[in-house]
């Protein structure tokens, strides 16, 4: 899954170096050299000099991305015990496990910038961290699992593919691994949609209903429109971002509409038309009020998601403690 840059302020993600380090006036020569490297499409690595704003932006973006992968397991995890066949269950389990992996690759990438896993976990559990708005919508029927794979992972792929060339090396490498794994996520989702769309009238109706509910939130996943995305210009200059939100959203619409047509389902947008002049689809207005409400934490199941994360963390405490006790014993034995 993925997250867009949701907030302009730093939320609970203090990098140790920015807060306590001796912040000197950044050397103009270093900054010039940095910008030249980025402009030449070189990768920046953890120990390289980088402007503090670059570091902060990356910590925020990568940690939000990581949190999205982790919280993203919840809507699908809810259906693991209710999958309609053993095959579907095995597939969904593998997908959810992949998302955990994505979260871990990304946390590690963020840690190379001087934040700690503990800080990020705490920020998420305290409700101070942002994650993709899409996961604050409920999964009501099995068709939602199809729609999520098809649309949500589809939108994630659209966003993540260009991030394989993002300027920060560890982030780019994490994205390469993630992208390799995402394609199966989308295809298994579309396969579920095909089965439902060609099933009984009731199943067909479920498929349409899932598309109706997930279509607009999926378009919102690309983040606010370009004119309301003040950080985009800087992020693009630093090659943290490679395309604007609207460009990626348009691409997603153009690719996805024919896929809906193949399923015989209707995209829930009365204004959706093919534009011969631009060679692209025109689509209707997005309800940005809804988007900002979900960003503020007013999504339909936002509280439930946070509660589930906190409970999982608390219930796993004994495992972490046991592992640590075992290691302490082992170390003591070695020392004796």
């Amino acid at each position: 899954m993925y997250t867009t840059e949701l907030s302009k302020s730093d939320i609970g993600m203090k990098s140790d170096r920015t807060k306590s380090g001796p912040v000197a006036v950044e050397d103009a020569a270093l900054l010039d050299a940095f910008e030249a490297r980025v402009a030449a499409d070189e990768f920046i690595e953890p120990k390289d000099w980088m402007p503090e704003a670059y570091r902060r932006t990356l910590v925020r973006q990568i940690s939000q991305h990581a949190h999205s992968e982790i919280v993203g397991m919840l809507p699908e995890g809810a259906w693991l015990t209710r999958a309609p066949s053993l095959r579907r269950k095995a597939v969904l389990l593998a997908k959810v496990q992949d998302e955990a992996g994505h979260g871990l690759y990304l946390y590690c990438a963020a840690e190379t910038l001087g934040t700690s896993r503990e800080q990020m976990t705490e920020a998420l559990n305290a409700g101070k961290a942002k994650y993709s708005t899409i996961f604050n919508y409920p999964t009501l029927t099995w068709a939602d699992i199809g729609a999520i794979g098809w649309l949500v992972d589809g939108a994630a792929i659209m966003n993540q593919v260009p991030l394989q060339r993002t300027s920060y090396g560890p982030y780019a490498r994490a994205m390469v691994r993630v992208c390799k794994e995402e394609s199966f996520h989308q295809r298994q989702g579309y396969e579920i949609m095909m089965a439902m769309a060609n099933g009984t009238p009731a199943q067909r109706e479920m498929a349409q209903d899932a598309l109706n509910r997930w279509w607009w939130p999926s378009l919102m996943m690309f983040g606010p429109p370009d004119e309301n995305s003040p950080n985009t210009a800087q992020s693009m200059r630093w090659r943290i971002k490679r395309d604007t939100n609207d460009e990626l959203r348009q691409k997603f619409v153009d690719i996805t509409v024919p896929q809906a047509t193949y399923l015989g389902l209707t995209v829930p947008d009365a204004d959706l038309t093919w534009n011969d002049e631009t060679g692209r689809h025109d689509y209707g207005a997005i309800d940005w009020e809804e988007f900002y409400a979900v960003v503020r934490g007013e999504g339909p199941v936002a509280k439930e998601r946070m509660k589930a994360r906190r409970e999982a963390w608390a219930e796993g405490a004994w495992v972490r403690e046991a592992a640590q006790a075992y290691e302490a014993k082992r170390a003591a034995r070695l020392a004796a």
Partner: protein
Amino acid sequence: MDTAATKRDWPLWEVFIRSRGGLSHKHVGSVHAPDPELAIRHARDVYTRRMEGVSLWVVRSSDIVASDPAQAGEMFEPAESKVYRHPTFYDIPDIVKHI
């Protein structure tokens, strides 16, 4: 970085995978784990879900010694200026074979 908060994190391990027999181990990423055995298990779960390897190494990240990127220029300059270490530096007429 040695604040109380970061100390509560399990140590970080760098993960290396041999993708198949005959190839070297290659760095793929890192994991947190309390001890070496769990580091190997976590590395398997995180980095080899698709038959990516036949062998795993984990090394405590704090045990890795790295060259300083700020010194990369001076560090690698000796190799850069010695082009005569490459076979293409030497002009041998085409008529001479197998050389």
